């Protein structure tokens, strides 16, 4: 199975990058790829619970659906902590992820090293929002 890793640096609703990332993820999943989404800088806002949009596509709902279809989502702890998503000082020993109640199920907060680790496993890497 081929692997695609997406790297998203901008937040939802400020540019189209999040929607493009979702679209790429969906198409790649349909084609049988394993798909990873790593969130960095303002990209860490994407999996926040409780998004209520009026005109724009709801990123939270889109990501929930993609997670059910197999998308893996990780967010950088340094970026997520600065923006108030990390609720604790240390990673949980079983998962090596940092605690949060603010993200949708299937999205986790990790050290930045998860990103180069995903790069090494990938056939393609696409960065968006830089």
């Amino acid at each position, binding site marked *: 199975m081929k692997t695609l890793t997406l790297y998203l640096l901008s937040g939802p609703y400020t540019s189209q990058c999040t929607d493009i990332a979702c679209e790429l993820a969906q198409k790649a999943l349909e084609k049988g790829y394993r798909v990873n989404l790593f969130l960095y800088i303002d990209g860490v806002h994407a999996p926040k619970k409780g998004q209520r949009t009026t005109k724009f596509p709801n990123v939270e709902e889109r990501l929930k659906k993609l997670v059910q279809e197999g998308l893996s989502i990780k967010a950088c702890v340094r970026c997520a902590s600065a923006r108030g998503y990390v609720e604790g000082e240390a990673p949980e020993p079983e998962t090596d992820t940092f605690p949060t109640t603010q993200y949708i199920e299937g999205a986790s907060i990790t*050290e930045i090293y998860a990103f*180069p680790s995903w790069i090494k496993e990938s056939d393609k890497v696409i*960065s968006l929002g*830089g």
Partner: protein
Amino acid sequence: MVGFVVILVTSAPYGRENAYGGLYTAIASLELDLRTVVVLTGDGVYSALKDQSAEKSLGYPTIGDLFHLLHSRAKIYAESSSLKERGLGKTDLIEFVEPIEDMELFEVFVKYGEAIITY
């Protein structure tokens, strides 16, 4: 599988978080034994100016310090045309940052650009 990564910094430091993000990612990539090249282009070349002191003026970490963590294990290039456009030259840069001409940069992308991450 990807074994090389190019960190392409196009944003000036301090005004946005991107340049820091790129260099932190470069450091993490080296820690996981990915071959890593850092390329500064456009306003990204300002990251490599020597004698920065952002701690005093802005209260931000000085981005030049991150280059010192990188230079023994990664090539760091600043695009020559971007430097010229901004009135800058090699003597303005941190000593181990190398100016690179466009065609040489193209070769870097061809050789190492299995993953190109832009900031």
